[in-house]
């Protein structure tokens, strides 16, 4: 049956149901494209044959054509779903992705991410009365200006606005302005402690 490799790609993505980005299956895409090329060429040949009298080939041509459409659908859905996941990373994690994630992205996807970042940044700069507004902050309505955070791993020095530096060592606790910490919490370096 045609389209087996294509459906495998979809299955792979569907398994990562929590929004994780699996590695870009370059090999898989290539195989699907190869299958599509073969189908297309076979159909081209058979169309010529059918035109010169072999009308019984029409059902076969139709068959292959459906398979081509199927493969296309699978690839487009695969790429699109991955873009949705990558977009989510910008909002959930931040604008600098960890290496582990970057290794899973293709060069084009990386490029898309950069463009998306730029668009978002431009937009955010334009709102908020000229000053700009960071929409990726305060995703949950804040309850207080300052929060207590605990350091989950050794991070080193961390600079806050007015130039002061804090040393983030494992198991140290800090009471800091919320907006400073949000990113580091989302990245798993700090833990928000509720008392």
């Amino acid at each position, binding site marked *: 049956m045609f389209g087996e490799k294509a*459906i495998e790609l979809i299955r792979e993505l569907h398994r990562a149901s929590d*929004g994780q980005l699996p590695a870009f299956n370059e090999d898989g895409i290539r195989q699907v494209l190869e299958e599509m090329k073969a189908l297309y060429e076979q159909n081209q040949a058979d169309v010529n044959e059918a035109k010169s009298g072999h009308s*019984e080939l029409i059902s076969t041509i139709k068959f292959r054509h459906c*398979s081509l459409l199927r493969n296309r659908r699978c690839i487009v859905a695969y790429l699109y779903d991955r873009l949705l996941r990558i*977009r*989510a990373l910008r909002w*959930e994690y931040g604008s600098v992705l*960890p290496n582990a994630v970057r290794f899973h992205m293709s060069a084009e996807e990386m490029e898309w991410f950069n463009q998306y970042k730029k668009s978002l940044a431009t937009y955010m700069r334009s709102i908020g009365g000229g000053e700009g507004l960071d929409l990726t902050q305060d995703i949950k309505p804040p309850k207080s200006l300052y929060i207590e955070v605990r350091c989950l791993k050794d991070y080193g020095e961390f600079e806050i606005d007015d130039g002061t530096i804090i040393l983030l060592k494992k198991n140290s606790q800090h009471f800091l302005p919320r907006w400073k910490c949000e990113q580091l919490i*989302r990245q798993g370096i700090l833990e*928000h402690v509720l008392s």
Partner: protein
Amino acid sequence: MSEAYVPVEAGFGLEEGYLSLEDILMSQERLPCRAETALPRLAAVLGKAGAEPLGSVPEGTKLEIPLWLAKGLYDNKRRVISVELPKIYKESWRTVFTADANVVDLHKLGPFYYGFGSQLLNFDSPENAEIAQTILQTFIGRFRRIMDSSQNAYNEDTSALVARLDELERVLFRVGQKGLNDFQSWEMGQASQITASSLVQNYRKRKFTDLDS
């Protein structure tokens, strides 16, 4: 679950979601058909090789093909294939469903009972009206239990509860659980707690396996 990642939703009724991963998987399920004309050079592809891989599949052969192919080859004049109803949508099973919908293991029978069943209506079967009715009634009959169990299973192993649900029902169940968990966390005062992105946490766990592969 990561809140910023919103996958494309499955379609509704006769329409499929083109980009929906779920619908693509659903349309991979097979159904029984009959070839209404010979299909040259497709013997190997259709698993009927015998001696010749590029041989022709004769007219009248019984086939099992995926839904997407059936939809593509079908037309109302039935020139290429004609479609048969899978047995769970036939009369005998329909009576089972109407008798007691809750007893049936839709995961084993499906797992896309509702989605697939809705798509079947594209094939102009004379039983379409009954099929549609059965599917609807089954859903109505099972919905209450799904809602109840999703709202009352907190912090426990739900595998027994979801084992017999089809995919659409599982989505509903998860939605119910999410609502429950969100409420509980709000009640415990954790709603305002900023959490690490779930995308990141799992990457850390998987890092070593990725390096190995």
